[in-house]
């Protein structure tokens, strides 16, 4: 089922806001998690909005991507919240949330997920500069929307993050309701498409006119975007792979790491409340450091840097959705996302798995078949 979201004067934001308000109102949503302008500064953060009036500040179209909302939504749905929820998420946030759902960190059945086509986002640093260049955040977003969905070569111009430029899932396929923006002609309004039974039910209650069939422009815009990204992705993978094809190379790649573990704190699928690297397991005895130093003539401190990153690859590369938040979080500008996307691409491919796309597909490390992977056995 599809429905049309009316837009006046090419004002994307107002159209979306009123659509969200309708959803909240007609579906009896108690609160909606949506990127919203902070009251105190021109900044955007996910906010759990219970007063529909506050949706006037909601801005899900902004290229701001301060945190991956999946983790926030997991906090809201881990246990029954006592009310009906909705969340407006980027495609990568939805995929991350699906991964978390598979790991019992959140639940889909208690929340209506509205996903919006994502042209890409800016790093926190770049967004601050971008936002500050505009009078208001709304103006910034409007300016961004004017070009972002055309499919044209906006990635470089908009300085999207590397993760976004390499993203090959820009549409919110896992949402209950998908708002389609790529290739949209704003004069015709936007399309909201139900992608689940829950989405159907919600849309049916909204009383909006049905939308037109998929526009050919949308297809063109998507194809162009995906082609460009595929190309970027290929180049990025080649360059990262070349740089890290030895342990020496990998060490150099991670040379600036100070073991702050921000990358894992920002990672939506690193779901542990406490990372093992910050537990007693890695609180080595002083004797141990001495032994290492003795054995090797010297030991870099803090230790376990490579161990941490390799472990993280083993733990979550099959769940990596390529959102880029690790790079975004790194204080020392290590392009972690490029590395993790590369590894995740290969580990997921090895298990025929795509992180976050299909809720019914079990994570590769949960389960086994009696007959499989014979090639890894033997001398």
């Amino acid at each position, binding site marked *: 089922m599809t429905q049309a979201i009316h837009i006046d004067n090419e004002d994307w934001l107002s159209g979306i806001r009123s659509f969200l308000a309708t959803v909240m109102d007609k579906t009896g949503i108690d609160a909606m998690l949506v990127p919203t302008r902070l009251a105190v500064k021109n900044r955007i953060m996910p906010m759990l909005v219970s007063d529909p009036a506050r949706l006037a500040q909601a801005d899900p179209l902004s290229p701001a991507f301060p945190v991956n909302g999946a983790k926030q939504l997991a906090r809201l749905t881990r246990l029954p919240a006592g009310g009906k929820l909705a969340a407006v998420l980027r495609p990568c946030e939805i995929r991350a949330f699906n991964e978390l759902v598979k*790991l*019992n*960190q959140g639940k889909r059945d208690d929340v209506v997920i509205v996903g919006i086509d994502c042209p890409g986002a800016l790093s926190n640093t770049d967004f601050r500069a971008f936002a500050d260049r505009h009078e208001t955040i709304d103006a910034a977003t409007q300016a961004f929307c004017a070009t972002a969905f055309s499919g044209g070569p906006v990635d470089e111009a908009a300085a999207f993050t590397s993760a976004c430029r390499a993203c090959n899932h820009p549409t919110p396929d896992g949402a209950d309701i998908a708002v389609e923006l790529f290739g949209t002609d704003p004069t015709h309004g936007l399309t909201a498409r139900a992608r689940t039974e829950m989405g159907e039910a919600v849309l049916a209650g909204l009383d909006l006119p049905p939308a037109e069939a998929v526009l050919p422009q949308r297809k063109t815009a998507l194809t162009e975007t995906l082609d460009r990204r595929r190309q970027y992705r290929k180049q990025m993978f080649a360059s990262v792979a070349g740089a890290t094809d030895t342990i020496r190379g990998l060490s150099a790649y991670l040379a600036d790491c100070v073991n702050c573990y921000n990358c894992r704190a920002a990672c939506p699928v690193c*779901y*542990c*409340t*406490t*990372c*093992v690297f910050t*537990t*007693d*397991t890695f609180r080595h*005895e002083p*004797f*141990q450091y001495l*032994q290492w130093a003795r*054995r090797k003539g010297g030991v870099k401190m803090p230790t376990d840097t490579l161990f941490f990153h390799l472990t993280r690859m083993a*733990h*979550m590369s099959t769940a990596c959705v390529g959102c880029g938040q690790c790079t975004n979080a790194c204080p020392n500008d290590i392009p972690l996302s490029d590395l993790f996307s590369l590894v995740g691409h290969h580990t997921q491919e090895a298990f025929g798995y795509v992180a976050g796309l299909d809720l019914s597909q079990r994570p590769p*490390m*949960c*389960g086994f078949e009696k007959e499989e992977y014979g090639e890894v056995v033997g001398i």
Partner: protein
Amino acid sequence: MDRKIGSALVAGAGISGIRASIDLAQMGYRVTLIDRAPHMGGILSQLDYQFPTDRCGMCRMLPMLDRDAGIQTCLRKGLFHENIDVLLGTTLAAVEGEPGRFEVALNQAPSPIDPDRCIGCGQCSDACPVSVPDAFNAGLTPRKAVYLPVPHNIPNTYTIDPAACTRCGACEPVCPTSAIRLSAMGRQAFRILVVDDESIIRQSLDAWLGDEEGYTVETAASGPEALEKLAATPFHLMLLDIKMPGMDGVTVLEKARIIRPSLNVLMMTAYATVETAVDAMKIGAMDYLIKPFEPESLIPKVAAAYEALQKTAYRRQTVGAIVLATGTTCFDPSVGKNPMGYGIVPHVVTSLAFERMLSGTGPDGGRLLRPSDKRPVKKAAWIQCVGSRDLQTGADFCSTACCMFALKEAAVARRVAGDDFQATIIYMDLRTFGKNFERYGQQTTSTEGIRLERGRVHSIVPTPGSGDVTIRWTSASGKIREECFDLVVLSIGQRANPHTTALAEGLGIDTDGFGFVKTAPFSDTRTLRGGIFAGGTLTGPTDIAESVIRASSAAVNASRTIHRAGGGLAEKADDLVSCRDVACEPPRILAVLCRCENNPEYEKALDVLSARLQQDPAVARVKILDRICTAQGWDSLKETVSATVNRVLVGACRTFIYGKKTRGLAAAFGLDPVLMEAVAMDHHQGLAAPATVAAIMAGLSRLKNVSMEKDQGIAVVNRALVVGGGIAGMSAALAIADHGVDVTLVEASDRLGGNLAWLHQTIDGTPIAPFLEDIIGQIEKHPKIEVMINSRVVGAFGQAGHFFSTIETAGEPTTTAEHGAVILATGGGEAPTDEYGYGTSEAVVTQKELETRIHEGRLDTDGITAVAMIQCVGSREEPRNYCSRVCCPTALKQALWLKSRKPDLQVYILYRDMMTCGLSEAWYTEARRQGILFFQYRPDRKPEVRITADEAAPVSVRLHDPILDAPVEIAADLLVLATGIQPRLPETLALAYGAERDRDGFFLEADSKWRPVEALKAGVFGCGIVLSPRSIAEAVATAEAAAGRALAILTADRLPAARTTAIVRHSLCTLCLRCIETCPYDARFLDDTGQRVLVNPAMCQGCGDCATVCPNSAAIVEGFTHRSMFGAIEGAMAV
């Protein structure tokens, strides 16, 4: 509950003996497990592969509860359990006394090799000049007279085969630890000191007693010399002259008795001093001889002294009950007429030899090569029923295991030898009678390259020039087939153990004509003497699963005997009472390293290792001790006990590690056993090898990271719930209640009895009704059993130790039962059918209906002249693709009953394969003899049934007789259909307890061979035909087995957590629940709030899978924490 300790003897350390011992040990008894052989495991030590996995899995037999009472290791190494004393080379010589208090005498073969000293280096074997066929490899390889009986055995003590040993003495001097004392064997061990001043006497006595009689003789020419020798070494007998110059004999005797009070002394006297000799007897001489004397008068006196000594070498023991599990032997095809040319035609081997050929410890290290020319075997034939179902070899029984054995061997051989391997199995009836056998058989024989041929081989001849073997048989169609094979395997049958007959005679228990032990009616394990029970194949040939079931049944019956006699079930002593609380202390480790060798290289390695250990601040002290596995070594180890250390690391050889000493050491230090870590130092690699150092460092890391957290275990509700009031349920309930444990017995119908209510008699004519009445009577008056009829379990939750079950009773309020274990005995019933005209005519009935008619006296045999029976109706093909096992004997039973009523009545039995396994084969022979006609049919050519209008013969059965290769039509008055058994286990009931059903709806056992009566989920058991179709006696055996296994839980107050058990560190847990999903034992669950993952420590087996799926070590396994493992890796890499 009575807490007195009971004890039991288990004779036979094969798989059944091991099972019975573990069961008894788990119930808290002290068990003495003996075996005639110098090794454990019986025949299974020679078998590496078992279907259905075509692998081993024997270790799954080990206790899952209270795992720390034993050592968690491959059973091929041995059975190590604190309640079990294993005595090898030991036989049961005599039994006196009554059930509950038997005095047993055990005869132990003298051990010429000191197990404390032998380090398994094998130098003795290298030195031994004798070569004999190695029985372990079925004679395919040679071995020395001094040898390692089973290569896996730990301790890997060598042993001497007294029959092969020539006593040449070559081994003694080469032993680096002086462990060999050849003189300890037999008469050589009997040391005689001859004291006489006359050299002629000394020489002739030396010659008579030493050279002729084989005793060890030393001589002394005077009293002082004699005393000197006596002081130096012990003697058993002294021949002492009275009249000697210097010190006379009486004085020597007096002094000798001070040095060696128990020495036997035989005085030698001249006629004149007889009185002195009589006086000497007053001060302790045993007898005298008057000189001159002949050997004939001397030798019996010496022999008497020797025999007396041998008798005292008997070990005497008091036990409450005895389980015999001495098993069977294999038929030797070379005896008698030997039509198979075994031992004559090359490349004809037994199935056991073939098994060895497949084994990694076999003659060719697991490559399938022909014994003599070592050519790869690519085409082999199996000949079934060699020494089975063969009256010519005195075997009117089926050995039961060989069909599956051959199928398995073919499957494994194909895996080993490659896809171009071709197997042909030539058989008479393919007896795939057990659970999942049929499907395994079909799957195996549908494999390309594996072929079945119905027939029996007559001729085996060598193929000239090639070493191949040509065999000839008649195919099903009557054609004479001749084919050439690389190798022919004789599927040899089982034979009663010849020692059993003697043993049975000694114990006063009967055996049948084949030498199998006779049992009480409706029991496979009760011998005719109270307190003595039989497990395994002793009461008739059977397969592993049934052997194990019988063993468990025998164990529980033994336990009942002990309990009834007041022995009670023992509770394990709480050995933690005296433990020091060191939880808050930093680790102060004492490292003890064993010095087994004296050489500079070893010494240097010890120095390096101790320096290395001492670097670690956690190591308080390093101590090097000599040979800590010997008594002296152990003493010196105990001397190191000190309160200044709180953990102990011992580096020693395997003998020490697998002994029971670690626990004893912990007690000596007053420390919890988890604070003791014993590490095997590898002799073969050397102490300096990185591998050895790595092992020590891993042990150190474990000790440094050991957790002192103690789980209290699960409190046990001492009540069992038994669901199903048939024979299995009732038997289980009685077995449990007889141990003083409460039982709730839930039966859905309005009365107890199940299928026994409609059964008339057994095949041997024993009426069933009196047996049933007796059992019901026992149940009803048992104070510990509460019977709930018209009741159903409608819901349940909980785990081993504490379940809650909701029970609905017709017309009464719903109740909840709390119990520690549950036994599902919901049974099964005759499968329905609409085949062969069933339902369209009164003349077509099922076997159950026929039985009922007979039972109720409604069958008019006068009015009928012919009865036809069709077997396997809807069985052994999808969807009920299994053999119901009882139908063939049932058909025989009815046919023989009909014949006994009306000899000229004609009975026709239409069958696919007659499944008269074990001793029931004799009834098949009898039925044939009595003229009952048997027609074999194939599933693709089933009989056709026509209901006729002819009142004289209302049923017409048309079939194809494969022998005549012609159609046959039978006109019958009655057609009886054997539709088989289908289980009655509602899925909801199974799921309520976490049990699973197999694809046919039967109770899914944890392991079809090693744990056949329990679910993978602890505390849930199944018995009777809910497991698989079975006879009454077999159902009773499963019931008793299940009861015994359940008692291991039910008799405990708490189920203790083993050391290697998973725990949850809740502050780290993110509740992703992957650990719950991955646990193979269902040991993890969410608590009632849904916010905490808990582990049932009794169900957790410590596999560590949860810890691996957990990304942040919120799930850890004690002893294998990440810290500990990282430490081990670092230690290993720092070498």
